[in-house]
């Protein structure tokens, strides 16, 4: 290593300082919400300034959130969409990616063309809505699962990774009399566990965070996913529920804290699994980047 100049040292220090600042700016809003959600409402309201620790310690808000029937049904619905949706997504994406990764199939290139065109053109919001309506899927769970069954970008990532599997393996199996089904099930899939995991995560987090589909296609509140329930509580300020609660428990500022607790309850699953799954996402982005 060559000698480091004074300029190098100054740059390195400033760089570390800047990046540390960026980390604080990224994390603090979440910490603030966590601290606020654990604070005693009346003290939180009196306090003005940033929070470095909860004001007192208070769990009532969390108790109210996990008893809220809309939150419970939102959680349940979101789990259904995540599990059923992701399973179908990954299955059909893998199946089509397998077909598109074959070498000597004549119509493959037309199928591929048909797929790529959709990356540049789409019908848009209204024709999509009319289609779902005409298919009779309004106000059904299918409306949140079928229209996004195959995400083209994910399909291409998967196809790229299937194509990277050495052809000799497949050829050997075919000589031994394996059908295309068996090649798919016994050679391609077992060798693609990492990319399948990445796809599950992409689709899974997508379903967890999705809300516009529900906004557009659902009227029935019993089918609402968690994010749409959150929108009502956090954005539309339908604090009717929470203010009622406040008056019943006698603390006029409870509603505020309940909001913070709601954010935490809704985000916790992502925050908890995030450190473990982060590197797989990165991998997915890399595979996608190679293609592009």
């Amino acid at each position, binding site marked *: 290593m060559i000698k480091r100049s004074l300029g190098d040292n100054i740059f390195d220090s400033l760089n570390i300082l800047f990046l540390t600042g960026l*980390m604080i700016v990224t994390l603090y809003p979440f910490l603030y919400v966590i601290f606020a959600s654990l604070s005693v409402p009346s003290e939180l309201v009196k306090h003005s300034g940033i929070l470095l620790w909860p004001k007192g310690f208070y769990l009532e808000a969390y108790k109210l959130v996990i008893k809220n029937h809309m939150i419970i049904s939102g959680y349940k619905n979101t789990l259904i969409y995540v599990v059923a949706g992701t399973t179908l997504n990954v299955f059909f994406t893998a199946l089509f990616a397998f077909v598109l990764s074959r070498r000597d199939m004549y119509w493959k290139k037309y199928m591929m063309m048909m797929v790529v065109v959709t990356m540049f053109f789409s019908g848009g919001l209204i024709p999509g809505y009319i289609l779902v309506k005409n298919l009779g899927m309004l106000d059904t769970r299918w409306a949140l699962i079928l229209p996004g069954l195959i995400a083209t970008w994910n399909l291409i990532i998967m196809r790229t990774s299937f194509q990277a599997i050495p052809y000799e393996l497949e050829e050997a199996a075919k000589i031994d009399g394996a059908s295309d089904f068996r090649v798919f099930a016994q050679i391609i899939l077992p060798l693609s566990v990492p990319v399948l995991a990445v796809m599950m995560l992409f689709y899974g987090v997508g379903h967890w965070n999705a809300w516009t589909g529900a906004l557009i296609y659902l009227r029935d509140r019993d089918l609402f996913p968690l994010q749409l329930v959150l929108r009502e509580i956090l954005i539309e300020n339908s604090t009717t529920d929470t203010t009622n609660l406040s008056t019943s428990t006698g603390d006029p500022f409870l509603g505020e804290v309940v909001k913070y607790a709601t954010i935490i309850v809704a985000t916790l699953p992502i925050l908890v699994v995030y450190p473990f799954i982060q590197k797989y996402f990165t991998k997915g982005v890399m595979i996608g980047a190679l293609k592009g």
Partner: protein
Amino acid sequence: MKSELKLAAGRSGQPGKSRINDYFAMLRRDFKKHKYLYFLGLFGVSYYIIFSYIPMYGVTIAFKDYSPVKGILGSEWIGLKNFTDFFQSFYFWRLLRNTLIISLYDLLIAFPAPIILALLLNEVKHTFFKRTVQTITYLPHFVSIVVISGMIVDFSRKAGLFNVILGWFGVEAQNLLLDPSLFRTIFVGSGIWQGIGWGSIIYLAALSSIDTQLYDAATVDGANRWKQMLHVTVPGIMPTIITLLILRIGGIMDVGFEKVILLYNPQTYETADVISSFVYRRGLLEANYSYSTAVSLFNSVVNFMLLIIANRISRKVNDTSLW
């Protein structure tokens, strides 16, 4: 075997016809050989036909007076009326201006931000620190836009966190989301906050693929770190930057309605209402299907033209292009 016989028979007939026959024979053989694959492909193909191509056909309602009772086919053609209505309406310039300004802010500030972060991270030699920065800055990408917007709404309240911090600088507290002049800053700023880390991954991937020998050679030639960054690192990731820039320009009219409709309110429509949020309101809330489809078609056409122009310029100037 049978198809080969047919192929031979075809060849002996008239020349024009035989080529077509050859083609069909070849297709037949291909179908037969890959019958399972074609069967499996049928699922994917039907998905794309139903959920992508039928809506594309549905765009024709932009030129019709669509009524749900008559259906898409049965509704009357009205030519370009929806388009001229839109171009002459009060909304046209406002929506175009808002969409373009937000998008330009995004292009000028939010686009370079992850590149700069990647370059800075690349200079960090301490692996653990680098990993930590990455892990933390990727985090907001995974949090839903509803939660992020909920936090923004709360922090923008008169007693909210943003106002507390602005108060340190002597700014008077107000509900920031009710001020039309602040909407763009909040919208683009929160977008950078949420996307900077995740956006840097792709550049970090490009950085890691630069040949280290280039750096050695530059050091031998006496280049300091700044010079190395300028002449080795930046040219190394240029193709990635250009590719993403072309795609970004092709999406310049796409300011998604999700975050807009979560953050705007009638008081800020003046600066906040963009094409996609207008389409959502007019189309879905007011059931004005044909008109809003025309607006969104106009949007896509402009985007596609920009994509083609950007790609063409880049091919001439840089030899980098999407196709």
